[in-house]
């Protein structure tokens, strides 16, 4: 076998496969092109993943906002707050705000609902006299 080993070694060395300089350069160029393509794919995948995560987060938070609206809004505008807001506003101003500067319709509506006898009983004798004189003058 020793003789065979030597001959095999000779044949082996005489037939060494070689790459040309062009092939070597092409191999390395292909390697970097492949790396770039893989990086691009990874980058695109990362962006797509991030987008999905952001969308999922937004969707979740949006649902939470709606939940909060349902719970908080009725509490925020409480009757107490309304009372506080309107307590220091005059009746005339309120009336004007409500009827948009056309109070006649409201006055008529209120007058229809009020019992005249009850209203008169609430007046002082001087106020009654004043109203009666106003009515006489208008007639």
């Amino acid at each position, binding site marked *: 076998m020793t003789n*065979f080993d030597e001959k095999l070694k000779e044949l082996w060395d005489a037939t060494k496969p070689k790459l040309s300089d062009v092939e070597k350069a092409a191999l390395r160029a292909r390697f970097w092109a492949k790396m770039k393509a893989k990086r691009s794919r990874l980058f695109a995948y990362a962006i797509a993943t991030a987008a999905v995560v952001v969308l999922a987060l937004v969707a979740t938070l949006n649902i939470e906002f709606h939940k909060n609206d349902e719970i908080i809004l009725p509490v925020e505008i409480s009757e107490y707050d309304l009372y506080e807001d309107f307590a220091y506003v005059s009746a005339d101003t309120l009336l004007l705000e409500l009827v948009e500067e056309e109070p006649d319709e409201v006055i008529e509506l209120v007058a229809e609902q009020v019992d005249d006898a009850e209203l008169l009983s609430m007046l002082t004798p001087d106020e009654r006299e004043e109203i009666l004189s106003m009515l006489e003058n208008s007639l």
Partner: protein
Amino acid sequence: MKEPDSQNEEAQLVHKAKQGDKEAFDALMLMTQDYVFRLAYRMLDNKDDALDVMQEAFYRAYRSLKSFRGDSSFRYWVETIATRLCIARYRKKRIFVRIEEIVGLGKEPEQDNLDSEKESRILQDALGTLTPRERAALVLQMEGGKSIKEIANTMGVAEGTVKALIHRAKEKLYKKLRKYFKR
């Protein structure tokens, strides 16, 4: 054995490549690609397959460069990756070659014009009779000048197994090549 200067140069390139220096990794490829190509070609007997394996070996090396501790040389590391890829690919390839032989679709031997090409074909045909592991062990010894222990480490098998693989490989080659050597 490599010269100390060469080892230092390689270590510096590996250090730079680990920090993301592409030119350093390119230089490492340039230093090792001839050897890795010869290994892959001897094991696979096909230039395109050899180039594919080389590319994959370098890609795997680049991807896991940060885990490379530098206990061995970069060349040895890539050689190990390439050898294992070659064994896996050669196993698959042999299955297809056998099927082609059985159904009569085997390729006609190429007509080589030059003497060196004829010699190369004779050797490659003889290597084609070996099993993937026999071929890998023999190629590592003949091409890389590796010791039994180094081959065992590269292939991930016991030293005794490597001895047996090389012995069987040479016996098979002897049967195939003795007529040629007698001429």
